[in-house]
């Protein structure tokens, strides 16, 4: 609401010409469709989980073709692409995402689109969560058990308190079960979005020990969490978007038709005809809202609530 009013103020001359009611309609329609974050400043884009998810989805839709083409890009270049949609997107987030993919190694390496995208999703959507996790991890490495400070919600936690320092090297990571308990308590008390605990538990159950980046990588790759988030399709379907492909074919046909006719034709050519055959093409994918609700029903776990934001 606040943002709507802010936008109204910013563009009052133009909006006053076609009516405030219409403005609000459009605004909330775009919120529903997830297009409200286009070209907005970063502070807005990251303001709510819905915004973040919308941004991720938009990024996927716009640059799916780049991934489909098979180009491997550097973190810098992905950052450029992000900046095309959000001009002041900070480099740190991209770097952190790259670190997840590359396991904190050789930061100039090339990454594939799908690797980067899923890692970026985790990093961006769960930024605050990840920060807390990092702190917990460090504590565990150092031997301090955060569980001793906070009353755990699950009774099993009380039996697991350890006083002795953890004498394992960082390469070995921390013990998975202990780690999970800390995460669980974090999820319960955190006011930021967290991945659903059940899924995390499932993920951790297969490992004895894990490192921080190993954990993050596992998070990124986990399709259950991806589906729970609801922004991106499954990894297997990452390059599928039939409606957009159709549009793209039209565009390409127009361009190649043009270039055959010769580049010396007047610049204001038919290539400039906007693709406005209909004012809006409904995205083939249902609005985020619904999807999440559906997942919630199927998963039956506690979803993040976005009413806590804003």
């Amino acid at each position, binding site marked *: 609401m606040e943002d709507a009013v802010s936008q109204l103020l910013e563009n009052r001359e133009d*909006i006053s010409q076609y009516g405030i009611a219409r403005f609000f309609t459009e605004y909330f329609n775009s919120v529903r469709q997830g297009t409200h974050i286009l*070209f907005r400043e970063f*502070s807005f884009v990251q303001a709510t989980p819905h915004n973040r998810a919308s941004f991720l989805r938009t990024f996927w839709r716009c640059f799916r*073709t780049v991934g489909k083409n098979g180009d491997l890009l550097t973190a810098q270049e992905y950052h*450029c692409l992000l900046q*095309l949609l959000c001009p002041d997107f900070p480099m740190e987030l991209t770097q952190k995402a790259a670190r997840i993919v590359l396991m904190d190694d050789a930061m100039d390496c090339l990454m594939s689109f799908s690797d980067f995208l899923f890692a970026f999703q985790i990093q961006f959507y769960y930024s605050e969560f990840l920060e807390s996790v990092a702190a917990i991890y460090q504590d565990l490495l150092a031997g301090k058990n955060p569980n001793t400070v906070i009353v755990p919600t699950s009774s099993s936690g009380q039996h697991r308190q350890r006083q002795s320092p953890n004498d394992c090297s960082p390469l070995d990571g921390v013990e998975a079960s202990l780690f999970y308990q800390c995460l669980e308590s974090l999820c319960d008390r955190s006011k930021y979005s967290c991945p659903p605990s059940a899924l995390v538990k499932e993920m951790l159950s297969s490992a004895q020990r894990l490192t921080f980046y190993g954990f993050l990588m596992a998070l990124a790759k986990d399709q259950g969490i991806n589906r729970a988030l609801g922004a991106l399709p499954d990894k297997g379907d990452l390059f599928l978007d039939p409606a957009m492909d159709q549009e793209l074919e039209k565009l390409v046909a127009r361009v190649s038709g043009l270039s055959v006719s010769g580049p010396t034709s007047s610049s204001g050519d038919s*290539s400039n005809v*906007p*693709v406005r055959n209909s004012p809006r093409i409904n995205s083939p994918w249902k609005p985020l809202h619904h999807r999440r609700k559906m997942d919630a029903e199927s998963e039956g776990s506690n979803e993040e609530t976005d009413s806590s934001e804003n």
Partner: protein
Amino acid sequence: KNMGKYYSLCYLHLKLVTFVLNIVLQFEFRINKEQSSFHNRLLQHDLEKNYSGRQDNTNFGSSSSISFPVLQRTAEEKILSSDRLTLERQKLTVCPVIDGEDHLRLLNFQHNFITRIQNISNLQHLVFLDLYDNQIEEISGVSTLRSLRVLLLGKNRIKKISNLENLKNLDVLDLHGNQITKIENIGHLSELRVLNLARNLLTIVENLNGLDSLTELNLRHNQVSAIVRKKTLCLFIFDFFSFFEDILCLADSSSLSDITLDGNPIAQETWYKHTVLHHMMQLRQLDMKRITEEERRMASVAARKEEERKRESHKQTLLKEKKRLTICNIARQWEIQQNRIALVASLNQDKDNEPCQINGSDSYVFPEESRSLNTILSSAVQGLSVLESHLVEVEGDTLCLYGAGALECLDRNWSVQTAGIIVTVSFTFIEFDEIVQVLTKLKTKFPNSVHLKFKETNLVTLQQFNALGQMHRIEQLTVDPQGNPVVSFTLWKYYVLFRLNHFNLQKINGVKVTENDIVMAERLFGILAYVASSELPHYRMLSLFGESRRKQFHYLLEGKGKKSGIGSEESSDNRRNGGESTTRATLSYTTKDFHMEKLEEIKERKTFCQTYVENLVKEAADINMKNESLQKLWPQMFIELVRDAVIEIRNKNSYMKLCLQRITDQKQ
């Protein structure tokens, strides 16, 4: 009669013959006489052999030092030519000891095989010594000949000039045809008038200081090509500038009237003759040829022209140098700017004259240093004034701008002719963000500019290319990898092609754009354009576009819903504007500064909106609360209302009275 003639003829003939014969005989006699006498007196022998034979009329004494023949002349000869002795072509291998001729003034040893000058130290009065055409390898044995005025040592094997210290009266020194590589040890010969050093191995002529009387200097057939400047005598250099200076020096030495330099490489130069003539007016002979007035005049003219030409090229060189240095200066400033080196720290440093490297991490710059660099340079290159911090240059059809200050030149008034020629505009050492702000000016000032070049302009993101969309026309784009990290991206060219597709770029970085490239670009980024245009709410579109678009869009908004109509109208509009497609135009670039400003505004607005909405919410909450409270309390209130009313009208009469009472009260 016939007989008479015959006789007279005969007689004449006879006379002639005898006359000729006499002469011949006389000659022969003379030669023979001399030769025979010599032959009688001298016997050739090797140094090893001892010979002490006696001949007629000769007195050969063998000296104590066995090896040398001793020469003695007869008394008659001594009287005939008392002060001169000629011993040429005597097949001598050594100088003989000359006995009893201490007053000798002329000694001729031409055409022999003498290897060393010896046994003449006693001839203290010797004035003329001729050793031409021998095999002498070093000058020696003449130290006592203080009266010597003419020393002819041509055609020998002398490698070095030496041992002439005492010959202060030397007037003519002939050393031609030797193997001398260096002129030395003659500086004391202040009386020397003629010095012949032709046919030697000289490469540099020097050490002619002190030859105050020199009037003739023969340097023919050497390798001479360089000169050392001396007080009275200067010589020639290959390099043009010094040539002038040295010629001028020579001009001072008025004693020089003859110069022979031909056979030297320097004499092959086109400017040789007239430059010499022009600067040495006192010369009467050059290379053994008299100089005519005509020649002198023409030489003057030619020399002047030559001077002009050289001056011009010198000026060009200077200008080029200045330009190069300016660009270096700008580059240096750019480096500092990029690396953000603090000037404060460097100001406390000592200001030494070290040349700074154009290496960001090492260089400290402060205004003083550019000045000190200046002083170094100005001493090296004349006429260099304060170095600029920007440079504007027109080279052919290219306008080159170096340094941020150069952008101001776009505000200048350019002549239509110059402006019309410019096809390429090249930006170097300027921040791209600053260039963006002047791009629109390019359209008005240089309508024919179709090629943009960027080097060291800090192009780091693809976003920045969006700014080029506002140009009126681009056919070629060159982005130099140096100083433009964006070129290292895989997709940069495709993005450029996509974003600037309305320009129909022909070449990027010199490589022709193919149809495949264009199709690929569209394939990669087409959806971006689609999303950016069709999914953006209207009000956002409007805010992202400039004024010129708003009309278009208002029109569009009205026509919303009509499908085909929009398409054709808009395309015709666009054709009129010659502008970019609306699908791309939403992809814009705001420079960092503008963006910061916008963010500031946004922040302010945000706080306002927050409070505003909060108030609204509070109001709404209040109202809601009141509503709820009302809902809660209403039943009770309603019942009470009803009850009160019923109680009131239970007694009809008293109620009627009550009502009337109320009415009258009201009236009052």
